[in-house]
């Protein structure tokens, strides 16, 4: 027979073995995800009720059941919103500088490099920075705003990177067509480039929001703890949902652990929802473009 030479048994076994290991690695990666999600849902549903969503921890004794995370949910929403208001304009403008004005010069390369490095700054360090600068140096009080400052530093590099990627996808023909009509560069950017990249930028921002919404360490050092509702992010300690989970998980009672799980469930729901919506926008956009 002169058909294709058969592969020796040893090589075939090795090939199969490698394949098996690769499949196993993937399974190993998925197991913790399933385990975490399942436990969070199972343990979290016990207290996932109206009281949890509408009450704070004020006047809830150490061993009492009941109580809720309303103050923490409000805090998280306000802090994340403030952080977005700070980081999105700065991040977007930086991305515009990098794509439209930088021209690969030394400054733009330095900014680009440090944006990458900034993604790796530990979240606890941004918290410490706001503590050192805002609270200790400037003498400002612990507040939701301080937490938002720390979160915004974490958000900035993500916003810059995703916005930059989207701006680079805008075809140069569009820019040139606009210039040919005598439109100034900045108006071209505002009226042509940004609208074209808009949905992509929204996706990136939402992913950045999802990333910081679950951050605990920076909040711990900047917004401090409270068991009461504080609607004003500009004065006095606030609570955040991740902080709430950390606080309750560190307490020795089962009632607190139950609240921690439900807090975790609420937090994951918020984060996953943001993630999902962002991906849906991205998917919807690419589908619309493909057709």
């Amino acid at each position, binding site marked *: 027979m002169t058909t294709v030479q058969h592969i020796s048994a040893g090589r075939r076994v090795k090939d199969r073995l490698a394949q098996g290991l690769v499949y196993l690695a993937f399974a190993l990666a998925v197991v913790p995800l399933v385990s975490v999600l399942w436990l969070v849902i199972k343990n979290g549903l016990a207290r996932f009720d109206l009281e949890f969503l509408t009450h704070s921890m004020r006047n809830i004794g150490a061993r009492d059941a009941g109580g809720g995370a309303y103050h923490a949910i409000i805090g998280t929403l306000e802090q994340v919103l403030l952080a977005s208001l700070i980081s999105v304009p700065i991040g977007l403008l930086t991305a515009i500088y990098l794509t439209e004005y930088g021209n690969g010069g030394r400054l733009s390369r330095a900014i680009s490099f*440090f944006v990458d490095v900034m993604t790796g*700054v*530990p979240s606890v360090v941004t918290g410490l920075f706001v503590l050192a600068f805002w609270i200790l140096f400037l003498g400002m009080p612990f507040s939701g705003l301080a937490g938002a400052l720390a979160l915004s530093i974490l958000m900035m590099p993500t916003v810059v990177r995703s916005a930059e990627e989207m701006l680079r996808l805008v075809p140069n023909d569009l820019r040139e067509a606009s210039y040919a009509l005598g439109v100034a560069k900045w108006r071209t950017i505002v009226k042509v480039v940004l609208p074209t990249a808009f949905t992509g930028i929204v996706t990136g921002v939402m992913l950045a929001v999802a990333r910081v919404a*679950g951050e605990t360490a920076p909040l711990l050092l900047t917004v401090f703890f409270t068991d009461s509702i504080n609607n004003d992010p500009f004065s006095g300690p606030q609570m955040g949902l991740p902080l709430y989970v950390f606080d309750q998980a560190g307490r020795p009672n089962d009632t607190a652990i139950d609240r921690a799980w439900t807090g975790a469930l609420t937090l994951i729901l918020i984060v996953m929802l943001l993630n999902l919506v962002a991906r849906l926008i991205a998917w919807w956009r690419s589908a619309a473009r493909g057709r």
Partner: protein
Amino acid sequence: MTTDVRTRGGGPATRRSASRRSHGEAPFRFAATGAGILLLAIMAAIAVFLISEAVPALRANKGNFFTDLTWEPNGSQVFGIAALAFGTVLSSAIALVIATPVAMGVALFISHYAPRRLAGPLGYLVDLLAAVPSVVYGLWGVTFLVPLLKTPSEWLNAHLGWFPLFSGEGAIGGKTMLAGGVVLAIMILPIIAAISREVFLQTPRMNEEAALALGATRWEMIRMAVLPFGRPGVVSAAMLGLGRAMGETIAVALIFPATFDISIEILTPHGNSIAANIANGFGEATPIGRGALIASGLVLFVITLLVNMGARMIINRRKEYARSGA
């Protein structure tokens, strides 16, 4: 200033648009450049203000900051980073040893093994691991993983106890470095897998097809074409993962037993990390204590900065290489 612009604008028909054009351009350009410079300034400010707030505490330190094991900035004002830094490095090393091979497997699975149609959604599934908040991993680790690891830890200690990492007497299992390391491994897996996947996908098709045409099996093709090409990418991905693991705070703050000693027994309840100590110690810290925590954060910042800059330099060099080679 406006008259100058108008004369440049020429005839009356274009005057309006010309003046409007120049009105916006300079401020807009200035704002964009300013935002970029602001980012650089923030990075510099992080270093400056951590140093300035750490110095008073370091002055008040009655011990040696780099060699002392104790951490009592609130009471006796003797504190040193040695035990914390050791714990940070050890736990991150455990995480890296576990996560890197698995992440490479995951990356190969997505890039070369999974059916093309499924590759996207399956990759998204792994990315979801990164979307789970750190505090949730901590909660999961304390209530689920720590009890789960008890029996395997005892087995390892009984049968492989001669190996220094697995040695130790007394209580085996519980809140250990191993448990912390496993949780860290899960948390850094997505970033290592995502970057490795990108690099593996960039392998020139020609190299892959050449290997297959020479009769290589899939695994041989991967070993000869994909892995050598992707090695620098995987190295930098692992370094980015290392940086993440060292800076990870809340999950390990819930898991580590917060002892201040240097012990390589990863199966006994020993250990702490810089980040975990900041989270656990901040509540009761006096002004000196806060300064001491900021000083420890400064050490963490410098270490992670070096690791990240190294990783980014490898990636950037690779990018240029890939561009010129393409």
